[in-house]
């Protein structure tokens, strides 16, 4: 993980300018319209921190997303960057096109576990395979927040909806999947772990290739069932559930801070627990099979390994293999994209 000098939104370091000559507020976005306590908001904050710390120029950034609560969040950071809120599950293709047009752009993609794991899994697979240079953040809450709480493909076996429907399907581990597909930077973190998440995001921004980060991010409103490892949830233990049709309680963010090698138990509002295991400092993230084994083993123990799980720093990214001219394709002048008359004449002669 690069850049040990951390700067967060709350430290006094805020007032200073970064290497792009900007202050932290230059990285803020619109006011969030997500629920209070939603993990996605914390992630937006960390993206702001990381971009500020890395001195990214906002006018070189493009923010990309699909559809979902998570996919709304690019509106809430880097307000002066271009953004494209595409259609559900198809952000990877839009991002690919944009980077083809201009390989100098810094692409930050935000998706949800539904957006990526369900309708978008095909584009996800092919994005990983291509190693497109993009930071790809999955804001992973195990459910479809925006459509009111249905299971997503990362929901745990045994999770139960309010209606009593139980999920019988095994979750897709997006990290293991990405590694399997040849992704070159794979990490997992928790929305409430400021230190780790900022560090992971900074490393991702420094990586040339696809940097996939699965961020466990509680949905405080819908993922409220005992079985879930990704949930907050409300008033369950003692009260008679009031069952209001659309009451969304107010929650504070959960935050954690724990050491490498340690397991952190995160207690949710409903008493359910999430176990995070931070990879220890000796962990070697360049061994693919080892990374897969760690993911499988922690999963079998009911834990989530967090940190930079796998990285292959040297792999050529997609744009490099295309061998494009140095200038962005989008800004090539007519003289460089319309061949001269001699070329047309040559072709015509060949067909005549």
């Amino acid at each position, binding site marked *: 993980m690069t850049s040990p000098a951390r700067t967060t939104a709350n430290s006094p370091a805020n007032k200073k300018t970064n290497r792009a000559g900007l202050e932290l507020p230059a990285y803020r976005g619109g006011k969030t319209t997500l629920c209070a306590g939603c993990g996605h908001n914390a992630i937006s904050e960390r993206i702001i921190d990381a971009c500020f710390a890395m001195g990214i120029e906002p006018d070189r950034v493009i923010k990309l997303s699909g559809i979902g609560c998570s996919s709304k969040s690019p509106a809430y950071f880097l307000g002066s960057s271009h953004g494209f*809120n595409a259609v559900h599950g198809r952000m990877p293709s839009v991002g690919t*096109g*944009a980077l083809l047009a201009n390989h100098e752009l810094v692409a930050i993609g935000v998706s949800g576990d539904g957006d990526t794991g369900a309708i978008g899994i*095909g584009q996800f697979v092919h994005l990983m395979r291509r190693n497109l240079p993009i930071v790809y953040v999955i804001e992973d809450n195990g459910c479809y927040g925006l459509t009111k709480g249905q299971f997503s493909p990362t929901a745990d076996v045994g999770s139960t909806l309010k209606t009593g429907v139980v999920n019988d399907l095994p979750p897709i581990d997006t990290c293991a999947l990405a590694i399997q597909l040849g992704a070159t930077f794979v990490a997992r973190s928790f929305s409430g772990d400021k230190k780790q998440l900022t560090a992971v995001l900074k490393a991702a921004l420094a990586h040339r290739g696809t940097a996939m980060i699965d961020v466990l991010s509680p949905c405080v409103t819908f993922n409220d069932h005992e079985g879930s490892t990704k949930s907050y949830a409300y008033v369950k233990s003692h009260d008679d559930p009031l069952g209001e049709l659309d009451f969304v309680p107010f929650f504070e963010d959960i935050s954690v801070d724990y050491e490498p090698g340690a397991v952190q138990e995160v207690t949710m509002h409903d008493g359910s627990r999430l176990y995070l295991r931070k990879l220890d400092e000796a962990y070697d993230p360049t061994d693919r099979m080892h990374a897969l084994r760690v993911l499988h083993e922690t999963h079998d123990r009911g834990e989530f390994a967090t940190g930079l799980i796998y990285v292959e720093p040297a792999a050529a990214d997609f744009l490099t293999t*295309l061998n494009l001219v140095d200038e*962005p394709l989008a800004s090539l002048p007519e003289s460089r994209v319309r061949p001269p008359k001699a070329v047309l004449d040559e072709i015509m002669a060949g067909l005549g």
Partner: protein
Amino acid sequence: MAAYDVAVEERPTASSAAPVINDFSIQVATVNGSGSQTANLVLLRAIFQMGVPVSGKNLFPSNIAGLPTWFTIRANKKGYVARKKEIDVLVAMNPETAREDVLGLPAGAAVVYDAPLDLDSLRDDLVFYPVPFDALLAKVSRDVKLRRRVRNMLYDGVLSRLLGVDLDEMEAALRKQFGGKPKVVAINREALDVGCAYAEEHLDKRDPFFIEPMDANRGRILVEGNAAAAIGCMMAGVTVVTWYPITPSSSLCETLIDYLRKYRVDEETGKATFAVVQAEDEIAALGMALGGAWAGARSMTATSGPGVSLMGEFAGLGYYAEVPAVIFDIQRVGPSTGLPTRTAQGDVLSTAFLSHGDTRHPLLFPSSPEECYSMAMDAFDLAERFQTPVFVLSDLDLGMNTWMSAKFGYPSKPLDRGKVLDAEALEKIGRFGRYRDVDGDGIPWRSVPGTPAPAYFCRGSGHNEWGQYSERSDDYEKNVDRLARKFETARDWMPAPEVEIDRRATVGIIAYGTSHWAVVEGRDQLLEEADLQTSYYRLRAYPFRSGLASFVERHEHVYVVEQNRDAQLASLMRLELKAELAGRLRSVLHYAGVPIDARTITDDILIQEGYRAERSVAHGRMPHEAGVGGE
């Protein structure tokens, strides 16, 4: 021309009928995968080089090898290039279809056939020329492997003799095809000679069909529509090409890749001024094209019906978020997988209305390779000018068949990149609102990521003129009303129709795309056979130019000719024309998978106009359209 002259001098005279010169069709019935395409194109090109107007249509199965294929070459001194139903000279190489092929011929036709097929007993009103191909092959080369590959060149040799096609022109055509491979040219020439010699020695010319040199093809080229479109895309300065293979559109992208690799690589650095990505499917292909265009590149994709059906969601995003893209739809026969290797104009409605909500897209209808070329450039200009996906509706007939064409002219206009914001424009418009109608034409200004112009958030959800998210009714209405206004503005930017008014005509004809060529011929037939004058409006784009109504107004009946079941373009017209005018529309429909022919149009109009009671030939079918029982 020496060989030809000789052939003419020695022309066999057994034929009783008057000679038919430069006005007949040759059909080669063979099996796909047998390499006959080379022989067919060499024959076609030789005739072309002799200055005779010619066209070639390949009817091939949706499979790779072993199923029946028919390649038809039509030579026509008047320049007609539409499909003609009657076959005058059949080359019967395929045992499976030979019987049906022969039975479908008109009396007087000639049949060159593989001798063991024993076809001459089938009918006595044809001229049969048996050729022992395998025996002849032994004379060409001792290398069995090589030999098998030139088997079809033998029938070219036979035909050269029988029809009077210059052998040297055939060799020139071979050289065109096999450029730097003299050995290949040589062995093929050998086969031509063997075939020709056999015909000279053993075949008694008894049919009336002859090719004689003309001078109609000066300055012309032979090209497929997809190749022409590829050239157009390259000249349009395309920078992002995303695609997913599908017949009959693949060859557009594949040819484009060839050209780009040849002509759009920076000479100094060896680096590309373009990016091509074979996407994982059509959804991704259009998503990439839109992403590319949003970030400022000229972006395109190409597909066919099934791909279009998958692109609905992204097409709607392009319309509503106002992102350019050029989409080629090389139409094949639907619905569903349908007949993937047959031609149709069946995607007019589905592309015009592609996506839910009140979505609407501009369409371009090329009729010729020249228009594939020019409309490719138009499409990029229009897509960027109007910030919206533009569909180019070609079809399999145009895209994959070989057409004569005038040489393409070098573009005279610079690229139109539309209203892209730079410092100067920003000054002019004042505060940037991505969806503000600053100029009253419905077209807003846009900024491009990575440039100093102010950013905006591009989205398919509701937004106001400042590009902010909005669910307000007034913002919504204002926005979609502006989109409608923009579509209206587009009307008179679209390629204008080609109109031929006959002042005496009470009958008008409207056609588009490849139906055009059959109309040209059909109008002549109508005049010759029934003295029926017609005016003609060759439509080239949707939304229609405002002049459409006045064309209809001039005529009592207007026939809309198209290659689909549901009168799709006529439907779009009915939605726009005043009822009084819409009532004058009638349809001539052809949806047999094979290209429309003049006879279908002529007969249909004569019947509808009350000149005739019945069709002369069963509608849209030709005997040899045998099809196959394979999968």
